[in-house]
């Protein structure tokens, strides 16, 4: 297609440069550093083998952060798929205003995670936010600044909200692609709207559900950083310190560059394994035929 030998390379060069500079080099750097003891302000380093891994894996703080990460991953990504799924099913049924709705609902996709964090910090503020009236009835019932569970719920809510646009669009597209006659056939067969959701619609949007789940699982682990940093700063009392935030704190506040690199390596391997498992065990069972 291209007669010029260097033109294709030239065209992909800017993207390649970005990916190499901000992804591959840091990734290899992190793996490399996880086997060395780095000095906090640069200068010499010392090869220590698996010492960094021994140190990190014997640290209870690491396991706590890991556990919170898994809890967050399961609750937040489940809700971030189920809530858009309900919206999509509703939008699919009442198509009168679905065109503007589809467009308006996709806008939050353009909002940066940090901005969402600021908004939700305000929304869930115990004194002026949405829960303030609730607090006047039951004083002290809601306070994410003191109560770790409340802070965690705030994070989950913010994450789910930010996940709605993309997942909504994907799932709605899946629902809209189900042939109309299939719904009609199910109606003639005697299935009501609820029954049709579980017997016809959900099985037929399995590819879309799988895609959103895979993306959510992997993304919820990393993209939550912006929310934590703006809403809770990992508090109160470390209750919202997920692994990705702990890495940042260890590395940039504690200057434990080797420890942070080691945790990064572990987290990355975990995410890779997770995605691989999903593809091998779930992905194979999905029928893409229509």
């Amino acid at each position, binding site marked *: 297609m291209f007669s010029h030998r260097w033109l294709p390379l030239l065209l992909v060069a800017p993207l390649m440069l970005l990916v190499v500079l901000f992804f591959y080099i840091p990734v290899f750097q992190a793996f490399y550093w996880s086997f060395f003891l780095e000095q906090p302000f640069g200068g010499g380093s010392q090869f220590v083998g698996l010492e960094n891994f021994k140190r990190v894996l014997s640290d209870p703080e690491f396991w706590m952060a890991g556990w919170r990460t898994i809890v967050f991953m399961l609750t937040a990504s489940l809700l971030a798929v189920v809530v858009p799924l309900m919206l999509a099913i509703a939008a699919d049924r009442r198509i009168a205003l679905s065109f503007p709705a589809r467009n308006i609902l996709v806008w939050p996709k353009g909002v940066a995670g940090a901005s969402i964090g600021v908004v939700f910090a305000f929304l869930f503020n115990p004194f002026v936010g949405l829960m303030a009236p609730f607090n006047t009835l039951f004083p002290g019932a809601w306070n994410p600044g003191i109560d770790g569970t409340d802070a965690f719920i705030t994070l989950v809510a913010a994450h789910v909200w930010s996940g709605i646009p993309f997942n909504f669009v994907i799932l709605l597209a899946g629902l809209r692609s189900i*042939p109309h*006659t*299939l719904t*009609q*056939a*199910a*109606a*003639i*067969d*005697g*299935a*009501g709207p609820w*029954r049709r959701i579980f*017997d*016809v619609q959900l*099985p*037929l949007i*399995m590819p879309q559900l799988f895609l959103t789940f895979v993306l959510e699982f992997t993304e919820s682990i990393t993209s939550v950083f912006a929310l934590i940093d703006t809403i809770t700063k990992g508090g109160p009392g470390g209750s919202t310190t997920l692994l990705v935030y702990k890495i940042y704190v260890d590395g940039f506040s504690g200057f434990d560059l080797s420890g942070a690199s080691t945790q990064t390596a572990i987290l990355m391997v975990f995410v890779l394994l997770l995605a691989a498992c999903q593809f091998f065990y779930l992905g194979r069972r999905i*029928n893409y*035929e*229509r």
Partner: protein
Amino acid sequence: MVAIGTTIRDASADIELIGVTKTYDAKNVVIPPLSVALRPGEFTVILGPSGCGKSTLLQMIAGLERVSGGKILICDREVQDLEPKHRGCAMVFQNYALYPHMTVAENMAYSLKVAGIPKAERNERVAGVAKMLGLSDLLARKPAQLSGGQRQRVAIGRAIIREPGVLLFDEPLSNLDAQLRHDMRVELADLHRRIGATSVFVTHDQVEAMTLADRILILNKGRVEQFDTPKAIYHHPASVFVAKFIGAPPMNILQVTGDGSVLRLPDGQAVANYSGKGSFQLGIRPEDISVNAGGSIKARIRYREDLGSHEILETEIGCQQLRIATPFGVEIDTTSVLSLTFPRGRLHLFDGETGRAIPEAFGTAATTQSMKEYQ
């Protein structure tokens, strides 16, 4: 339960449409008030060109489209406001509409499962229907692993497994190739004879209509042009529309003018005696025209199609097109001008403006003879 394959049930329902209308807005009238009655156990074919409202009519009977007005009665019960599942209709769709994630057996058993019928009975009935339709070896397959004909059989099986009083078909054969379509047509006719449900079959294919129907309902822009037996529709078309729609090749329609004693073509040739005055449309089927040396009507040949069993001659008569089907074995000299005779008993006369038939215009109307001669 007795296997349905062998029994002839008497569960058929009668369907009555009273002033049924469908409009999307003031300008967009799909079906103006329409009233017809279908007898129990009857096989009715709704025939018409695309966009004539035939599928809409079927969907309104099924409950998939709301009626804008009027009543639909199934077994003397008003059903127009009921959900599809309460109407006792089963339907076969054009694109089969099989559930792609279910096996053949699950597809057929789905309506029974929704109805809460125990698994043992479901399996028994699936086995019975599968045997009847020759699907026994395919029960574990998914629809994607089936051929078009097999999918259509599954769709039919899914419809009849509930033993519905009303069976609706929405162009079920149009996705099949010609040979398969013929085979399925024969099977459908046989199936209808065995299960006896009141059937409504929508198609734009006149051959399907002629061969399957007890009665054909011909729709044109939502209006009933004619509702009669295939024979009556063929031999006594009620309008130019019907005359042109039925028959292959269709009936010739010639513009003629009556001067009080004879009907003349625009070029002045007299084609028949008739006492009426004014403009008319004269119809004659290609197979009813006889080509002989003594004929008084002259036509020029433009080209000929040899179909083996007979030939179709494309001719021109007074600037109008005229098709002639020659009987088998008759050699015709195609180099010269043809001499034709229009047998008086085979002529059809239609009003020049409305296109409605003028019955008994030439005394005794066409008989059933011509169809036999043709074949």
